């Protein structure tokens, strides 16, 4: 069978956005599920972010796939649907399949006549079984998949049927490693800022924390699974690119595994520069390990610093503190690791709160600060709390750069303040780069041309991004549409304190695995902090 897997563009071609300038990651979801079926079927991956608009139709005509699959996070849900609707038009006999975070957490949205199957949760084993079944049934045009766990499908009579959940693979090592030759044609075109050419791999899945704005732990049902150190290094060795992005949501979470990875890298003498995402409290608490990771090629960590206030962090259930952020940033700078920090502003912020955040960021001297707006993403606790108080349900505005809840400042003023962030904190970036260049001259020399390239591209993006009117234009006509609540003001929104019980949610099936960090410890932290504040 011929299987076509399509990575949608997140926005209409030509609109400058994150993928064009900051971070273009390999379509690992598609290489992962494609690899799982490639021994039985002919698989092609089409990355529409790097193709012309007509490539999809042309490929469908020329390749004549029997299966067309695509992936979607919330922001590109419409684009994923567009892919499948074109597929249905051109290849009406092909099975159309969608997987990924948004279809898993909001399957009802994909209950459409041109979407045959929704794959929920981890995709590899489900896709293997689905392809086998379709291969056997397609002559008869039978699109019913009763019993294929982890799928929802449309029965012949048009009814939507939901199969039982598929258990996650307990041992990640048992899954085939994504075969990157599936995207050989795009090699060299993926990047993180100026760091390119870059490969993308994953080494774990899930996160054991439960931040209320994040869907990761819900998607992976509060479990984290890890690849063994030898499998990780196998992947790294197989990459011809000098730079690798490790896509784990929280790489910095297990001390033993990080140590084993360092051992393995040293034993096999693998020298790669790599980047990842991880929590600041881990970096702050394990400076020695961070040094060892840096010695083994770790050059950048993207972390959710989120806020300059402990109350805000607690409200997000971040279970960390602003002091940990400061300490983590110091540790990373000291060891020559670029620290990329994501900060969240809130729609109800005042000018003073914005100013306070810029001051904090400047004092941190963080290498790459990224500013976002707290957004109740579908599938999160926040979403369940605020889903009836949204100004818009347009998923394109859930990119963490638009306020989907009412702002306290007039919207124009709010975006003005928000846009000022990068200008206000420029000195932080400069100082951090100077400090890291001293510690890691070789690495900096290696990314120098990439950085020039990056600044050339971002210059064009900045014209949009630094102009608050771009944000207003983006949302013109899109607020207060269907599903939005009319007449809302910022005063109608009660932000969480972090202490409230989770809003009841129907479990996706199966039992939840207990949180690794229990709530009690967090409560103790708070008690300790208040004791420290009163000097006991």
């Amino acid at each position: 069978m011929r299987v076509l897997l399509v990575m949608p563009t997140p926005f209409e071609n030509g609109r400058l956005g994150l993928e064009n300038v900051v971070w273009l990651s390999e379509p690992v979801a598609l290489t992962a599920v494609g690899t799982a079926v490639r021994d039985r079927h002919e698989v092609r991956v089409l990355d529409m972010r790097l193709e012309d608009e007509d490539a999809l139709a042309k490929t469908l005509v020329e390749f004549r796939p029997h299966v067309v699959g695509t992936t979607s996070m919330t922001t590109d849900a419409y684009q994923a649907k567009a892919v499948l609707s074109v597929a249905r038009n051109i290849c009406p006999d092909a099975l159309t399949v969608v997987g990924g975070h948004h279809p898993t957490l909001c399957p009802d949205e994909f209950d459409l006549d041109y979407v045959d199957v929704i794959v929920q949760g981890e995709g590899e084993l489900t896709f293997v079984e689905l392809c086998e079944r379709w291969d056997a049934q397609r002559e008869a045009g039978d699109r019913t998949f009763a019993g294929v766990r982890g799928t929802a499908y449309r029965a012949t009579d048009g009814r939507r049927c939901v199969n039982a959940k598929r258990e996650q693979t307990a041992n990640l090592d048992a899954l085939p490693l994504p075969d990157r030759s599936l995207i050989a044609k795009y090699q060299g075109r993926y990047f993180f800022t100026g760091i390119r050419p870059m490969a993308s791999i994953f080494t774990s899945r899930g996160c054991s924390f439960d931040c209320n704005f994040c869907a990761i732990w819900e998607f992976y049902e509060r479990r984290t699974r890890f690849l063994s150190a030898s499998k990780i290094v196998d992947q790294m060795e197989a990459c011809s690119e000098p730079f690798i992005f490790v896509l784990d949501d929280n790489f910095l979470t297990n001390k033993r595994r990080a140590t084993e990875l360092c051992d393995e890298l040293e034993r096999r003498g693998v020298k790669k520069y790599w980047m990842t995402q991880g929590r600041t409290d881990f970096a702050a608490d394990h400076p020695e390990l961070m040094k060892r990771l840096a010695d083994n090629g770790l050059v950048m960590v993207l972390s959710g610093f989120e806020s300059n206030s402990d109350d805000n962090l607690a409200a997000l259930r971040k279970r960390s503190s602003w002091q940990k952020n400061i300490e983590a940033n110091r540790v990373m700078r000291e060891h020559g690791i670029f620290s990329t920090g994501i900060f969240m502003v809130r729609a109800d912020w005042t000018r003073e709160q914005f100013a306070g955040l810029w001051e904090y960021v400047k004092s941190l001297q963080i290498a790459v600060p990224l500013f976002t707006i707290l957004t109740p993403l579908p599938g999160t606790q926040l979403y369940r709390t605020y889903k009836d108080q949204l100004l818009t349900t347009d998923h394109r505005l859930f990119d963490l750069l638009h306020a989907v809840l009412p702002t306290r400042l007039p919207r124009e003023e709010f975006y003005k303040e928000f846009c000022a962030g990068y200008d206000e904190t420029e000195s932080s970036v400069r100082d951090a780069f100077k400090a890291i260049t001293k510690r890691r001259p070789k690495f900096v020399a290696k990314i120098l041309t990439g950085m020039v390239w990056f600044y050339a591209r971002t210059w064009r993006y900045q014209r949009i991004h630094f102009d608050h009117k771009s944000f207003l234009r983006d949302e013109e006509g899109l607020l207060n549409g269907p599903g939005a609540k009319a007449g809302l003001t910022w005063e109608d929104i009660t932000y969480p304190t972090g202490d409230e019980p989770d809003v009841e949610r129907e479990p996706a099936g199966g039992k939840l695995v207990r949180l690794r960090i229990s709530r009690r410890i967090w409560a103790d932290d708070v008690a300790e902090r208040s004791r420290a504040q009163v000097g006991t």
Partner: protein
Amino acid sequence: MTVVSIDEARHRPDPSRAFLADLRRDIEAHPGVNHLFLARCATSPFARQDYRVFGENHYALVCVFTSYLERLLVRAPSSDAKLWLAKVLVDEYGEGSEGHDHATLYGDFLAACGSDLHRTPDAKVPEPAYRFIREHRRIVTEEPFLVGLGAVGPGHEWAIPKMFHAVIPGLRRAGFSEAEIHYFTLHVEQDVDHGTWLEEALAKFGSTHEARAQIRRGAMLSLEARHEFWSGVQRAVVRWRQPRAVRPDGAKPRSFFGEIALTAWDGSPRLRALEDRVAALQQRRRPTLREIIDQGRR
């Protein structure tokens, strides 16, 4: 023993009918008809404002469509061809739409989008529409009759219902009433009729290999222009939302030096001003709506 391929066998009984079936399939699968922009209209909640840009870019096409038919009518070699062209023309002039011609119907849609372009005949024709019209004028005047028929016949009539089928749900989602989008819904119905009449006419013409090749060529030329047109409309919509996007070209790959040179160019106010002047000049050279309609009549 003579081996007959399945394809050959399929073509034997009535080659022109088989040809038309293949042609219809190819048209319906063409990137111009399945442009992602159209699928995005179907799936994304574009606002009325987006559709205003869409409409303003599309309007000129609607105003001049009959001129292609009129030109072809003059050149039609037989009464069959004339008959089909005349039937379609009657519809375009207002049959089935209470005497309103299609441009008038489209004007209602524009008004619902908040545009008054239909009352501004001295507005310049937007670039994507101008290119599309220029190409079609060339096809119907300079190319052989059957190429022209391929372009305005199957290239339009078999393509439009499919394209509008994607746009209509988006328009409804944006809150337009059925009366406001009558132009679109009418075309889905009417062009199915036109397509059927056309099939009869084409079956008569497509008797030789050469004739079939000419009809196909015309359809494909039209659809390529159509693809470019939709890309242009999409660029206009993106540009309207993001007027500060200096070069809305997405993740286009460029060499290191290409990227730097382009940024240096964009960074220089003088060079940007030069570019703007060239663009203004090009715009000045484009006809106005009134002029392009008059050109069609001439």
